[in-house]
């Protein structure tokens, strides 16, 4: 397969529960199925996903309530969300997948792998949330200024990525989308992103790769060890000069580690 040509990205809308839940997905690539679950920043087709699509068929849904996906009201908590992702995998005809999740998406991927160990063959967690240590509290992303949030997210808060992380003040549609996206993620993790994963994570059977930015100011890298120590089989890759968005801030290093793990 050529490494220069980007695989075409398709879009799909899947309806579940008599249309009460409508899920928008980006789908691209060929090969074994892989599902990518995004974090609170939303789904965008970035070079990391493009690289995954060179080896796998990538299914990247937008979480309910974010982007063009609808149906948040049907899902009252993390347990409902896990069942929903099982329904989505069924609707896509995917019995087993590789799962890659970033931040909140990492938490959801781990929950799915814990509840349905047989459905997840390999698990990649990029700076996931879901565990909690009182001595390393994760900051409240709703209770800080946009500028402070950027500082926590990025190794280089003045770099080229920074402007993309704050919706422009004079773009009502962008502000509305950002508010809805954040509301839909917070729906599952407010006020503290500790919803019992600690009591379930031991059930995960899939070999896992844990990727973390050494300078992650939002979810400190000490959590890499918290995840690794609870999983049966887990490798940890720490990436230097890197914050909470490793696949955007250090795409080459992340791609290399993830592709080599997924095989």
């Amino acid at each position, binding site marked *: 397969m050529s490494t220069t040509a980007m695989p075409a990205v398709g879009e799909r809308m899947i309806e579940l529960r008599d249309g009460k839940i409508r899920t928008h997905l980006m789908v691209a690539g060929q090969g074994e199925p892989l599902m990518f679950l995004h974090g609170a920043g939303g789904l965008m087709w970035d070079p990391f996903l493009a690289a995954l699509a060179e080896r796998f068929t990538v299914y990247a849904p937008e979480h309910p309530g974010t982007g063009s996906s609808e149906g948040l009201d049907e899902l*009252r908590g993390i347990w409902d969300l896990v069942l929903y992702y099982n329904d989505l995998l069924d609707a896509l005809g995917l019995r087993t997948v590789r799962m890659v999740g970033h931040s909140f998406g990492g938490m959801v991927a781990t929950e799915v792998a814990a509840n349905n160990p047989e459905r997840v063959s390999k698990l990649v967690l990029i700076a996931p949330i879901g565990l909690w240590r009182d001595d390393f509290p994760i900051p409240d992303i709703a*209770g800080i*200024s946009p500028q402070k949030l950027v500082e926590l997210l990025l190794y280089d808060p003045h770099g080229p990525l920074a402007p993309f992380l704050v919706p422009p003040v*004079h773009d*009502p549609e962008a502000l509305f989308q950002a*508010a809805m996206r954040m509301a839909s993620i*917070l*729906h599952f993790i*407010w006020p503290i992103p500790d919803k019992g994963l600690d009591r379930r994570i031991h059930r995960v059977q899939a070999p896992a790769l844990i990727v973390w930015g050494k300078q992650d100011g939002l979810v400190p890298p000490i959590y890499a060890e918290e995840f690794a120590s609870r999983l049966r089989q887990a490798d940890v890759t720490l990436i230097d000069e890197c914050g909470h968005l490793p696949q955007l801030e250090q795409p080459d290093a992340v791609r290399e580690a993830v592709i080599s793990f997924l095989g």
Partner: protein
Amino acid sequence: VKAIFFHLMPYRDLPADFEQKYESIWVTPPNDELCDPERVEQYYKWNLDELELADRLGFDGIGVNEHHQNGYGFMASPNIMAAALARRTPGNSAICVLGNTLALYSPATRVAEEFAMLDVLSDGRLIAGFPVGTSMDVNFCYGVTPTETRPRFREALDLIMQAWSRPGPFTFNGRYNQLRYVNPWPKPLQKPHPPIWLAGGGSVETWELAATEDFTYSYLSFFGYQHAKKLMGGFWETMDRMGIDQNPYRAGFAQQICVSETDERAEQEYLEHVAYFFKKCLHIPPWFFEAPGYRTRRSTEFAIKTIQPGDVAAMAAQDKDWKTLNDNGFIIAGSPATVADRLIEAAKTLRFGNLHALLQIGSMPNDLTEKNITLFAEEVLPRIRGLWADDGWKHEWWPIGARDRSATNA
């Protein structure tokens, strides 16, 4: 117009550099650094003294409300204050608890019980206020998931109304309240229940609820009547669209008021305290105002697409000199005649029949507050009381146990 002396119960001695040194008056102002319980003991006594004075001087009602971790109002339980007032208000003014923040109570039958206790204790003088509550209180201080704010409010309201109107015991199977036996002792003295007043900052859903359930609506803003024109216009348009009459007693409005012997004296006496309020008490960062999900999809879209970004910030950044505050209607201040004229103009413009008179503002000390209350009661209230009398509107949302003063003092 019915006049209610509404007390926020602020901290009156915040440090001079408060707004430079601290992030927010609400949610995170560090208690050990800023909140001295010995001073609060003095404040609480003053607050109750001031409310009791208003009752004796003939206000139609006295009002309390609920906020949490808030330097401009730390009445975490308004019901405790209302209970104290119920026993010490021989003037029989209405006791307006505006209100209990329903989403915070699980099970919400706690509110049905405490309000019923207050109604009985006050001999039928309770106004039962049900605000949705601010994002600061509900989401940040009490940890309620933002997207659950309104569903919890609606369910709690339904449960309380049933608890007051249906014979108990009965079963309530809600999403947030599952109760096998709902059977509060006692039920309220007022039948079928105390008058219900909603309060808020202008969400369309709340107006529609007021219309369908025949509740009053009070707009609680600190930015005065001129700024409120568009919003209250929206309220009355909603009433009209839903086939509801234009009875002014359906609407309430909160206004900061400073009365003195002359306009000049008002500035000399009150400016310092009003400036304290606008500089320190409204020192709240924008991200606390609205956790994502606090508003519904529909209201978020409405708010983002109709309010110019930076409107509130621009308002907050305005000079807080006496003229600007008066010209913009943030305060209504001056001699009794000036204040009465402007209040009549405000009431006519917004079409409200219930005035929540904010007469203790910011750092205002006890003696000046009592002067403000006294001048308002003796010289302003008689001039505004009869405003809607000629139009023949009846106040259908006033507690039966509270004395109707309209006939005697008009």
